[in-house]
């Protein structure tokens, strides 16, 4: 256990143990022979006082010193100072009892308060250090060095920050990819788990891109660097996670405000509690004692630590699953998210157009061949999918005419091929039949004769249905936005189970549509937009919570969104929702529990029902429990 402690924690632990042993020894001796009775006379209190003072100084010299120093700096409501006032006050009361000939007691209490205060401080330091470590395990993705290949063929280990664009680096098996780049030599597999939460390693080969933060598994790779370290994926992610805590949630702001007023108010009440009943009843020592108990509970540390820690743990937990949350406020908002707007292409569907059906089937090759001739030079995704499916070289020499919004006409000699949508067919007076099925239809005709049609469809992702179902079950609205026509949109919407859809939208209409939804929503509704980060940056920014999918390598998406799903997997959304829900539940528990216990202790000690022992246990205990509770956020979540 000792090995894992920081030097400071270890030193303080030893000090606490020494003081505890000494304290126990003195207290037991006191119980057996009663130290106050060892000497006779009015100064009999001096022996127990001196013995307890030794313990007090061992355990509290730093608190005393800080209190004096902070007072010199004008920091009145400083916890060190308040602790000193409470404990020294208790000492003074005990001396007063001794001098006035009452039963000698209270020295042990003053010592104990400071002792347990230190135990609590130590535990807080230990627990926050531990959770900081466990959360920042993600930070392990930071590469320590890069092997740069120099002009003379030698390699040199350098800081990744010194590597320039265009440099060649070697990545050995077991090493982290230090910078983004393109593989110039070698075939290997990469472990992307730290980045995306994806446990399946990824195969890469020459010409492929590598992303910094992955771990090279099997064999050496030679990579040409394409981005400087500052712009590399790993830097962007680290920056994002480290800065996540600066986007403060409402709960955190509430706590900061609360802490600002809590301590002064408790102190003022303590002062009033000592003075007013003191004057009225004349029983000064009782009321001063109660007031001192107040000061013990005056530090709001339990709240101030545990709330940000809960959020930090939530963000850390999410990042372990490849979900980057850009700030506590987004986690807080996302918990309330009840409207999910999805961009269809690339989000609910794979976004890769593929030939789904060719009609008539028995002449598939011929139709595909004709279409491939016409589409061979087009960069439209539909054209690419036809050429890809054909998979062979087509003969050239055709004059290709692009008819905007209709299709392509290919001509050579006396032959002319028509390849396009129904408008192209109608414009050229060709009769055609519409095939069954959902998707985009490309009609093919040759020399005025209808040949057949190709149905191109965008594949729905395998997890889409399950995720939409899960969100619907959580009571969320799910809305699909698409550029497809009404008929296709309706059919896809029914298939995947979204509660609403908007069809025939041009890219710029998406912003308008989201604006409309934002305007129509209630005050407590939170609208999330989920997109693939391509062309939807404005919508991502405009929505309450913007979620970008498949964020690895897409700077624009990382920048514009509030939550980034590093892995192109929709299941991250319900998972993030579960994490947000648990985080917020724990945050609420901590706020309510800490405030309730503190208030209860204050009331009880005002009426003299509890003493300083209970107060210090309550104060320190609450902090420890709240921290332990906060650490529960960073547990395992169901992910399937």
């Amino acid at each position: 256990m000792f090995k894992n402690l920081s030097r400071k924690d270890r030193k303080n632990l030893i000090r606490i143990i020494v003081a505890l042993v000494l304290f126990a020894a003195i207290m037991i001796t006191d119980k057996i022979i009663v130290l106050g009775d060892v000497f006779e006379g009015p100064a009999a209190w001096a022996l127990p006082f001196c013995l307890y003072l030794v313990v007090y100084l061992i355990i509290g010299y730093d608190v005393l010193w800080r209190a004096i120093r902070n007072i010199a700096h004008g920091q009145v409501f400083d916890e060190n100072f308040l602790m000193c006032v409470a404990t020294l006050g208790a000492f003074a009361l005990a001396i007063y009892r001794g001098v006035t000939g009452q039963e000698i007691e209270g020295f042990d209490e003053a010592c104990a308060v400071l002792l347990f205060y230190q135990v609590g401080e130590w535990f807080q330091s230990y627990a926050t250090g531990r959770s900081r470590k466990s959360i920042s395990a993600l930070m392990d993705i930071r590469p320590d060095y890069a092997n740069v290949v120099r002009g003379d063929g030698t390699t040199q280990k350098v800081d990744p920050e010194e590597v320039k664009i265009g440099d060649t680096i070697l990545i050995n098996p077991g090493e982290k990819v230090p910078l983004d780049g393109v593989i110039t030599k070698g075939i290997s597999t990469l472990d992307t788990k730290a980045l995306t939460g994806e446990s399946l390693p990824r195969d890469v080969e020459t010409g492929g891109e590598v992303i910094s933060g992955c771990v090279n598994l099997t064999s050496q790779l030679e990579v040409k660097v394409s981005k400087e370290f500052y712009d590399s994926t790993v830097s962007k992610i680290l920056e994002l996670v480290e800065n996540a805590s600066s986007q403060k949630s409402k709960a955190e702001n509430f706590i900061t405000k609360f802490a600002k007023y809590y301590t002064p108010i408790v102190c003022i009440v303590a002062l009033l509690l000592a003075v007013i009943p003191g004057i009225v009843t004349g029983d000064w020592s009782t009321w001063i004692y109660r007031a001192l108990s107040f000061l013990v509970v005056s530090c709001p540390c339990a709240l101030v630590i545990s709330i940000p820690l809960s959020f930090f743990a939530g963000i850390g937990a999410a990042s372990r699953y490849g979900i980057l949350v850009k700030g506590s406020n987004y986690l807080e908002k996302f918990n309330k998210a009840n409207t999910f707007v999805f961009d269809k292409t690339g989000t609910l569907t794979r976004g890769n157009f593929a030939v789904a059906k060719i009609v008539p089937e028995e002449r598939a090759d011929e139709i595909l061949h004709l279409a491939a001739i016409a589409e061979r030079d087009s960069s439209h995704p539909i054209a690419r999918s036809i050429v890809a499916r054909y998979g062979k070289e087509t003969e050239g020499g055709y004059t290709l005419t692009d008819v905007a919004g209709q299709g392509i006409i290919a001509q050579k000699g006396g032959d002319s091929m028509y390849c396009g949508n129904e408008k192209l067919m109608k414009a050229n007076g060709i009769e055609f039949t519409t095939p069954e099925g959902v998707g985009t239809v490309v009609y093919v005709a040759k020399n005025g004769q209808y040949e057949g049609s190709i149905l191109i469809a965008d594949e729905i992702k395998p997890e889409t249905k399950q995720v939409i179902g899960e969100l619907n079950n959580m009571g969320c609205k799910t809305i699909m936005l698409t550029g497809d026509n009404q008929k296709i949109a309706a059919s896809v919407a029914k298939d995947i189970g979204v509660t609403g859809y908007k069809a025939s939208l041009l890219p710029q209409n998406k912003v308008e549509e989201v604006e409309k939804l934002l305007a129509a929503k209630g005050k407590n509704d939170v609208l999330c937009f989920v997109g693939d980060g391509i062309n939807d940056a404005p919508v991502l920014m405009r929505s309450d919570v913007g979620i970008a999918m498949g964020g690895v390598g897409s700077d624009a998406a990382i920048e514009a969104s509030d939550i980034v799903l590093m892995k192109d997997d929709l299941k991250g959304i319900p998972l993030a929702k579960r994490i947000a829900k648990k985080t917020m539940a724990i945050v609420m528990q901590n706020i309510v529990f800490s405030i309730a216990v503190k208030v209860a202790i204050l009331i009880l000690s005002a009426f003299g029902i509890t003493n300083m022992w209970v107060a210090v246990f309550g104060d320190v205990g609450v902090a420890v429990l709240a921290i332990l509770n906060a650490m529960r956020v960073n547990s395992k979540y169901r992910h399937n």
Partner: protein
Amino acid sequence: MKKAFKLEDLDCANCAAKMERSIAKIDGVQSVNVSFIAQKMTIEADDGRFEEIMDQVVKACKKVEPDCKILR
């Protein structure tokens, strides 16, 4: 200009909040965030006077939490 600094021996969360409050009051500081958990401070301040402002930040920090060091 926005810059991040590591903090050493930042021991209490309430002090971090106090530090943040007093640094925010310094003239020329546009935004500041002291993260107790990350032991990090992010400051956004006027470009031209950044070093001068940082000197004041260090002073303010010393006043609130003398144990805490800003690693510049």
